[in-house]
């Protein structure tokens, strides 16, 4: 194993978290920073010709190459864990920008009481309202503490939307159930796909409070505080699983990378698969750096005084476990913190509806649409329902493409092939 010259900070992963940290350290300190990314190099201009459903949305060209390394999967502790052989429910990206390149750019905020879920639920319904084996925890930080950072991120991305609560003043047309915002969104709401407009009108007619979906796929040209300019969305419909053809969608390669590339104290190494964090528990700080393997299979030791894990919560946890750092969570006893409460996106029930009129669903974006949050609150409890919280309802106008959208049929149709 070859030891490299020591740096002040090493960052594992060049996605949103890693490149954001690299930008902050690179522009606000003189620390030497190395970012290690397992995937290939990417830049915004790569996406000018990527609107190919087969290669990108079906064959998933931007995702982690599972032939090189994968995770194992089981759905309960009694099953034998088996390799994830092909991508399914979750789509970890690989390459500079990570999953932030092929996301749908939906940028909702958590509600204030979500940060103190255990305390608030117990205060409202009593300490015994939750089952004994519940996993609900407070975050340890509050919305009020986080709000300035949410606002900074919205300005970085140029988020489009309409505020429903500016410093306590409720505004019709926005989400009146949201936490307070210090400012209006940097850009106005996106255009509204027809399908989402039907949902908006129906929700309104039922007395709910629909609002435009917060979107980092921006509605019009915008220059952020770092001087990065992007144009507005053209509603081409190729959003999630694709990089944005016109750069309207905020991606690490268009809002962070150009700043980082100008900094001499930050370097980015691609094709670097980090294997372990080396640490010495008797020292302070205890991290000594990381080991990684490059594309040729050679192993390196990158010494660093600061180690940032920014390779997605799932992989960060895996690296901690492999490195022997912390106490692994045991789902049987509930003990240990590493891997505890680890959650990916929770998929929610969805409904399929058929309309008589054409919806033109090929037009759209991954985050244009309407939502309502009248049920996203903690006062839904009824004695007849074992329910303490609800969620939001959404009708997003994702662009539909013909392979992925093919075959949606009413339940009465059983045949899957033939005339």
């Amino acid at each position, binding site marked *: 194993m070859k030891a490299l010259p020591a740096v002040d900070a090493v960052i594992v992963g060049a996605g949103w978290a890693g490149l954001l940290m690299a930008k902050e350290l690179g522009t606000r300190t003189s620390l030497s920073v190395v970012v290690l990314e397992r995937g290939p190099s990417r830049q915004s201009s790569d996406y*000018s*010709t990527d*609107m*190919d*459903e*087969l*290669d990108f949305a*079906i*064959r*998933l*060209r931007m995702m982690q*190459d*599972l*032939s090189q390394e*994968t995770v194992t*999967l*089981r*759905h309960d502790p009694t*099953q*034998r864990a*088996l*390799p*994830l*052989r*092909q991508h*399914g429910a979750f789509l970890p990206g690989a390459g500079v920008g990570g999953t932030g390149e092929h996301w749908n750019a939906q940028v909702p905020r958590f509600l204030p009481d979500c940060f103190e879920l255990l305390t608030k639920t117990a205060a409202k319904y009593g300490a015994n309202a939750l089952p004994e084996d519940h996993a609900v925890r407070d975050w340890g930080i509050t919305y009020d503490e986080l709000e300035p950072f949410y606002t900074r991120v919205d300005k970085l991305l140029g988020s489009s939307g309409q505020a429903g609560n500016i410093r306590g003043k409720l505004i019709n047309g926005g989400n009146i159930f949201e936490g307070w915002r210090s400012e209006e969104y940097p850009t106005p709401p996106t*255009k*509204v*796909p*027809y399908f989402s*407009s039907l949902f908006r009108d129906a929700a309104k007619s039922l007395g709910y409070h629909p609002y435009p979906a917060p979107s980092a796929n921006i509605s019009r040209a915008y220059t952020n505080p770092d001087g990065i300019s992007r144009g*507005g*969305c*053209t*509603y*081409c*419909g*190729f959003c999630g699983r694709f990089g944005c*053809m*016109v750069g309207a969608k905020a991606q690490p390669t268009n809002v962070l990378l150009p700043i980082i590339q100008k900094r001499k104290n930050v370097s980015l190494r691609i094709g670097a698969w980090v294997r372990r964090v080396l640490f010495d528990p008797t020292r302070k700080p205890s991290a000594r750096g990381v080991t990684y393997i490059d594309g040729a299979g050679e192993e390196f030791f990158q010494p660093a005084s600061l180690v940032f894990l920014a390779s997605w919560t799932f992989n960060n946890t895996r690296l901690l476990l492999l490195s022997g750092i912390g106490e692994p969570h045991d789902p049987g006893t509930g003990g240990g913190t590493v891997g505890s409460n680890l959650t990916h996106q929770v998929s929610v029930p969805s409904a399929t509806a058929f309309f008589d*009129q*054409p919806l*033109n669903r*090929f*037009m*759209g974006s991954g985050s244009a649409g309407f939502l309502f949050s009248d049920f996203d609150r903690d006062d839904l409890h009824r004695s007849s329902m074992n329910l303490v919280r609800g969620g939001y309802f959404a009708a997003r106008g994702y662009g539909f*493409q*013909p*392979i992925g959208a*093919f*075959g949606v049929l009413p339940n009465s149709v059983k045949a*899957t*092939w*033939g*005339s």
Partner: protein
Amino acid sequence: MRRRHFLTLSAATLGGVLIYSLDRKASLLAAQHKAVRIPLRFFTETEALIVAAAASRIFPSDDSGPGAREAGVAIFIDRQLAGAYGRDRFRYTQPPFEDAPRELGYQGSATPRQIYREGLRGLQGFHLRDPAAQDEALRKIEPTLFFSVLRQNTIEGMFCDPLHGGNAGMVGWQLVGFPGPRMSNFDEIEKYYGQAYRPKPVSLRQATGARVRPSEDEK
């Protein structure tokens, strides 16, 4: 090197005039061309004929419009199998291979190429039978992995960008009203509420003017 195989298709079944890419070379086929011999990359000629026949029962041409035969689905599948997808370039293919609950996904070791070769052995003479007998044969293999892969690949070949060899003449897109990768729907998205907006389809190469290379042509 294996003997070269060709699939002979009538230009008439391929829908008259269309631009077709043969081994990365664009060809213009007009109705006066009686037939075109397309070089195969993976299938033997007989295999290609069986796949073409099976795909056109899965996605037939009928009163609602053209199907797998007109779209050139067999050519699409041939190219996919010859490329990275066919050899499982991106799938995790190390042991253990175990029976697993369905929700853990396909856990087998066979690549798409092997699944087709094995599956096609069970369909010998398929292309020579009448449509009713073909449907009966497909119903028998409906629960198999081969059939589900063939069905999925047929849909892909109907609706993929023509640069992959399927969706010839964009007949699949015209069938479902998909206009292809348009650079902008900015002026149309709020204009066509409740009305069909059906611009003439464009392919990725037409929309971008770039010689986009499909993944199956990469090493």
